[in-house]
C-alpha cells in the first residue's frame, strides 16, 4: 500500500463523484440511462488508463500492483460497480487472451476491452453443471472449417447486452470429464444464439439463459488449444482469486448509517447499535483476510485456502450486515434525499447479498477447498 494507492483511491473517488449520479445502484436497473452511465464511466477510466489498471502499458493499462488493483476493486464495488459489466473483460477475459490468444485474437479483442467499448459474458454454467462445472454438456463438433456449437448456458450475466461470449464447450468425450473441453470466443450476434432474461429477486435482471443452436464458430475463435479449456478456466479462476471486495460496500453502508440518522442515532436500541459495531469489526476482518491473499499474491505465491477463507468470511459479512442495515433503515424517516438514497441502497444490498454465498463459486465449494488444505497430510 502507500502513497501511490492512496492517490489512486482519491482519484477514483473524484471520478465517481463527478461522473456517477448520487444514488446510483448499478448499470442494470430498469432505467437504460444507468447502463449509459456505466459505459461513459468506463471510457473516462480508460482515458486515464484506469479501466485496465493492471494491464501492461502496451495494452492500455498501467501495470498496477496487486495493491492498486485492490483499491480499484474496493472503490468500484463500494460505489455499486459503476463499470457495469466491464469488470469481466478487464479482470479476466483480457488477461486470458493476453496469455493464450493468438496475435490476431489479441489485436482484435484487447483494444476494445481497454477502451471500455465491448461487453463480454461468460458461458460456463449450465442447468446440470453449476459447482460441478466439468459436467457441462454444451457441445462443439467439427464441421469442415468451422465448429458447430449446440447447448444451453444459464446464469449468464450481461448476455442481453454483451457483444462477445467467453464460451466453454465440450469438443470430445473423454473418460476424465475435465478433458475434452475447449474455449471459444463467440460473437453474440452469431446466428443461432438466443438469449432469454431470467427475472430474479436479486434486483433488475442481468442473469440470462443462452441457447446455442448449431452456431458456427470458426477455428480462429478457439482460445488456447482444442481440449485445453479446463486448464484455461483454472487460470481464469486464479485471476479472480480475491474476488469481489464485498466488504467495501458493507463498510460504506455501515458507516453511512449514523450519518443519515444524525441525532436519532443514539436513540437506536443499544442492541442494534452493538450489532452494527460488530459488523464493522467483521468488515475489517474480511478486509484484512483479503489483504492476506493480496499480500501473498504480491510475493508471487498462492494459498488457495486463504482465498477460500476470505470468501467464506466476506459472504457471511454481506448477508449479516444486510440484516443489521435493514433493521437500521427501518428507523430512517425517508424525508430527505439522502435518507431515501440510503434506504434504497440498503434494500438493494439486502436483496443482492442473498446470492453472495452462491455466486462465483458457492460457499460449500470454498469449504471443500479449504478443508483439503487443512486436512492434507503433512
Amino acid at each position, binding site marked *: 500500500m502507500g502513497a501511490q494507492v492512496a492517490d489512486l483511491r482519491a482519484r477514483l473517488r473524484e471520478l465517481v463523484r463527478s461522473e456517477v449520479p448520487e444514488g446510483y445502484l448499478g448499470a442494470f436497473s430498469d432505467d437504460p440511462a444507468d447502463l449509459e452511465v456505466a459505459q461513459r464511466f468506463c471510457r473516462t477510466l480508460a482515458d486515464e488508463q484506469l479501466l485496465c489498471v493492471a494491464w501492461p502499458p502496451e495494452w492500455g493499462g498501467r501495470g498496477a500492483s496487486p495493491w492498486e488493483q485492490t483499491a480499484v476493486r474496493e472503490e468500484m464495488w463500494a460505489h455499486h460497480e459503476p463499470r457495469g459489466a466491464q469488470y469481466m473483460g478487464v479482470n479476466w477475459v483480457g488477461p486470458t487472451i493476453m496469455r493464450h490468444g493468438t496475435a490476431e485474437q489479441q489485436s482484435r479483442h484487447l483494444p476494445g476491452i481497454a477502451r471500455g467499448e465491448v461487453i463480454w459474458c461468460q458461458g460456463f454454467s449450465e442447468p446440470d453443471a453449476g459447482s460441478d462445472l466439468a459436467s457441462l454438456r454444451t457441445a462443439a463438433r467439427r464441421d469442415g472449417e468451422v465448429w458447430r456449437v449446440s447447448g444451453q448456458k444459464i446464469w449468464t450475466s450481461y448476455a442481453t447486452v454483451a457483444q462477445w461470449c467467453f464460451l466453454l464447450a465440450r469438443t470430445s468425450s473423454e473418460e476424465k470429464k475435465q478433458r475434452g473441453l475447449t474455449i471459444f470466443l463467440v460473437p453474440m450476434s452469431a446466428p443461432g444464439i438466443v438469449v432469454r432474461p431470467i427475472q430474479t429477486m436479486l434486483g433488475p435482471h442481468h442473469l440470462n439463459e443462452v441457447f446455442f443452436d448449431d452456431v458456427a464458430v470458426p477455428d480462429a475463435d478457439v482460445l488456447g488449444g482444442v481440449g485445453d479449456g479446463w486448464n484455461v478456466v483454472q487460470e481464469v479462476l486464479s485471476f479472480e482469486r480475491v474476488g469481489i471486495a464485498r466488504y467495501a460496500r458493507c463498510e460504506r453502508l455501515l458507516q453511512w448509517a449514523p450519518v443519515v440518522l444524525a441525532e436519532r442515532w443514539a436513540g437506536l436500541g443499544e442492541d442494534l447499535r452493538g450489532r452494527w*459495531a460488530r459488523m464493522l469489526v467483521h468488515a475489517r476482518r474480511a478486509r484484512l483476510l483479503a489483504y492476506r491473499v493480496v499480500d501473498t499474491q504480491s510475493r508471487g505465491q498462492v494459498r488457495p485456502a486463504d482465498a477460500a477463507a476470505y470468501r467464506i468470511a466476506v459472504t457471511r459479512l454481506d448477508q449479516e450486515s444486510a440484516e443489521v442495515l435493514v433493521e437500521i433503515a427501518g428507523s430512517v424517516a425517508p424525508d430527505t434525499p439522502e435518507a431515501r438514497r440510503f434506504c434504497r441502497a440498503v434494500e438493494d444490498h439486502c436483496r443482492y447479498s442473498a446470492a453472495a454465498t452462491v455466486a462465483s463459486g458457492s460457499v460449500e465449494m470454498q469449504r471443500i477447498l*479449504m478443508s483439503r488444505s487443512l486436512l492434507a497430510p503433512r
Partner: protein
Amino acid sequence: MILELGAEALEFGRSSWRAIQAAGGDELVRAVESDPSRRSQLGESVLGPLGAFDIDPWGSPEELEAAAALCRSVGYWGVPYPVEARLGRPRGGRFDALVVVAEAAPAAAGAGLRLRWAAAGLDGVLYSATPRAGGDQPRRSAFVCPLALEAVGTAQPLEVALALVLPCWTLLGMLDRAVALAGQHVLGRRQFDQPLASFQGVQFQLTEAEVERLGVEELAKYALWSLQTGRPEAVDDALALRLAAIEAAETVFRVAHQLHGAIGFCDETPLSWLSRYSVPIRRLPLGASATRSELTARIGGRGLTGLYSPPASP
C-alpha cells in the same frame, strides 16, 4: 499495516515454542495444577531464560512484535503463567504486571504469584492491585482470583490497549492449537471404516473454526500495528480484536470439542486443559456482550477507522 510479523519476532516465537516444548510442553499445566506452588517457577525457569522479561514492548516495534509472538507460543502450550500481563506492565518499573479489569468485579489469573500487580479500568484509572484469597482451586479457577484495588493514577490509553491486545495473542495461540488438535484427531480417528476427516460434515465444521482463527490472526496484527503507530483509536482497535477473539474462541472450542467427541473432555487430551485455561482470557475483563457494549459506546456514531471513516481525533 502489519501483514506479517517481522522475521526476528517470528524466529523468537518459534524458538520460544521449542523451548516451552522442551521444558515440558503440555505437561507444564498439569504439573502446576497439581502443585500450584510451582507456578511462580514457570516464570523463572521456563520464560525467564528465554529473555521474556527483558522484552520491552515500548522499546521498539520489533520488541512489541516479539512480545506478541511469545504470547502466541505460550498460548499454544497453555502455559499457566500470565506472560501477557507481565509483558504489558506499565512503564516506570513500579509494577511487574498489568491487567485490565472491570471495576465492578476486578479479577485476574494472579493466584500463587508474588508480583507487584497493577490494574487499569477501561476508563483509564490505574490501580495498585492485590490478589485476594477466595479463588477456587486451580482446577476450577485456572488461577483466577479477585483483586483488591487502590487507585494510584492514570493509565495511558496505549497501556490499556496493550494490556487488551497481548492476551488476545495468547488466546490466538490457544486457537492455533485447538484447530490443529481437531485436525489431527479427525485424521486419526476412524468410524464406519473411515477417518472422521472423510465426512463432509466434519470437514465443514473444521473450516468454520479455521476461518475464525485466521480472522483473529489478522485483527491481532492490525491491533498491534495500531499500537506501534500510537494511533488514538488503539483502544477501539484492541476492543474490536477482543470482541472477535472471544467470539472466535467460542466457535473454535465448540468445534474442537464436538469433533473430539467424549475424549476431548478427558484430561488425557490436551484439548481439555487448553479449553479450561482459555476461559479466563475469554471472560476477563469483559465477556463478549460487555466487550461489544464497551466498543459500541466508545465508537459512538464515528465507527471504526477504515476505508470510509476518518481516523479518531487524538
